[in-house]
């Protein structure tokens, strides 16, 4: 950039320092740890501290490095393919993420749309109202649902009092509870990007469509929906990606029969102490998640070109 070259040469040292600090931090605490995960996923489990082999022995020089690479294996990845637990776990995570993202879109869109149509001076207040629950702890919001969904909780009391059910149904430890918890927790992440796009929508386009005799549903379908697609993509990604790796919600609200992938990593690591296996599960999960991110960058670049 221009001003970078225009600055005095002395500034370049300061510049280097500005880049170097966060750069070094992220290298050491983000990239290197992930490389370690990658390495351990190719190691075998061992009863030792730490519980995996081989260790990289740099003291032994080239022989140590050669031995290290000879000791690496694909066994953990074969295990992932052969044990149905892992496969089901991935599928369940993708299924829950896909369906709950759809539900979020179906609920979030009308809310965002309504917010964008409210009088201008009320809109900041509505944004704060939607964001505020996000600032309260995630754990607390899930815990609040346990209060409501438990056997003698509020929901069953209301249902019994209204004579909708005779016997109190079981809510906790079901997939319904997982969906409820996820939709509840991620709703702000869906509403805000949608609102950001809908709020900027050029009203004259809608007026033009109305003047030309287009019915409202058709205007929505032909004008509003396509123009809000960047918001839809952003909201879907903001929800889908973290939901796939979700741990707290399925752990507290769901049952233990079919764990989601975040729970599987947790169980392998803390329960079975099989570090290589959980590292392999994590590596595959990252690969799964990279796909939508690349798609998103593609989309972001396209909208960037459009201006």
């Amino acid at each position, binding site marked *: 950039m221009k001003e970078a070259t225009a600055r005095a040469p002395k500034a370049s040292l300061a510049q280097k320092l500005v880049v170097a600090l966060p750069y070094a931090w992220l290298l050491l605490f983000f990239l290197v740890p992930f490389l370690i995960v990658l390495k351990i996923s190719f190691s075998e489990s061992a009863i030792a501290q*730490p519980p995996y082999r081989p260790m990289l022995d740099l003291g032994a020089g080239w022989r140590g490095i050669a031995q290290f690479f000879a000791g690496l294996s694909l066994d953990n990845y074969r295990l992932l393919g052969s044990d149905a637990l892992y496969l089901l776990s991935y599928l369940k995570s993708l299924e829950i993420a896909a369906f709950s993202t759809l539900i979020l879109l179906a609920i979030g869109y009308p809310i965002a749309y309504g917010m964008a149509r409210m009088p201008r001076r009320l809109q900041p207040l509505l944004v704060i109202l939607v964001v505020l629950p996000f600032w309260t702890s995630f754990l*607390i*919001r899930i815990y609040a649902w346990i209060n409501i969904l438990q056997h003698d909780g509020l929901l069953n009391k209301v249902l019994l009092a209204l004579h909708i059910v005779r016997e109190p149904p079981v809510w906790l430890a079901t997939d319904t509870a997982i969906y409820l918890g996820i939709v509840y927790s991620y709703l702000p992440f869906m509403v805000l990007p949608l609102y950001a796009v809908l709020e900027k929508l050029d009203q004259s386009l809608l007026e033009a469509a109305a003047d030309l005799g287009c019915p409202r549903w058709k205007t929505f379908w032909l004008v509003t929906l396509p123009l809000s697609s960047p918001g839809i993509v952003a909201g879907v990604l903001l929800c889908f990606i973290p939901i796939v790796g979700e741990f707290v919600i399925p752990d507290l609200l769901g049952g233990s029969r079919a764990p989601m992938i975040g729970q599987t990593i947790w169980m392998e690591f803390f329960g079975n102490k099989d570090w290589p296996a959980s590292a392999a599960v994590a590596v595959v999960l990252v690969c799964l998640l990279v796909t939508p991110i690349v798609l998103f960058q593609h989309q972001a670049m396209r909208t960037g070109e459009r201006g």
Partner: protein
Amino acid sequence: MRTVTAFNLFAIVLGIVFLYLPIVVLVIYSFNDSRLVAVWGGWSTRWYVELLHDAAILDAAFISLRVAFVSASLATVLGTLGAVALVRFGRFRGRLLFSSMIYAPLVMPEVITGLSLLLLFVALTIDRGFWTVVIAHTTMATCFVTVIVQSRLVDFDMSLEEAAMDLGAPPLRTFLTVTLPLIVPAIAAAWMLAFALSLDDLVIASFTTGPGATTLPIRIYSEVRLGVKPEINAVCSIFVAVVCITVLSASLAAKLTTARGAPTRL
């Protein structure tokens, strides 16, 4: 021609009720006198009083606040530097890797961030405790800080900086006296977000914590797994109250200080 239809209102009202109902129920039940959470035993503040005598919860809350303060401050410094580098330095060497490392943690599942950091600490034979949680939270929050500050820097009026430099101010002085005061609202918002994220985090902290560094979410989580307890209702209610007061006063302050749109989050 904006018309608010009944359907629009219905969607908003239902959405807000959905978002707030569980929290309201939680707060109401925290004032329930009965030990059985499901039975209403009249209004009482006894669980708040018992909370004051629960050393484990108080310790955990204190640790959480300390972790959040230190990691939010570190992350704000690192993240602001990162944002300045990304917006102002153009194409420096290693920029692609840098920007990938800034954005990747935003979408990385917490379980993996926690796992990978734990494996790093084990490989380096670092004893886990307060500082490992701080490092983990700083790493997670730095990226959020960068994104927020970056968005402010991008629509920054460059002519102000150019004017200062034309008048002979060296770059560092320009940054400190012109740029920094103008982006302070964004930096403050980023610090608050980093603080809230740290205070909120259960998964990463569970992986990276050690003896003597049990944070409040870890404490609450281990209690919640055993079922609903009235004391936990009280802790959560206090938490909710603190958050509401902080966020509302912050957004009010932002409204009073800046005439034009305050840095809205997300």
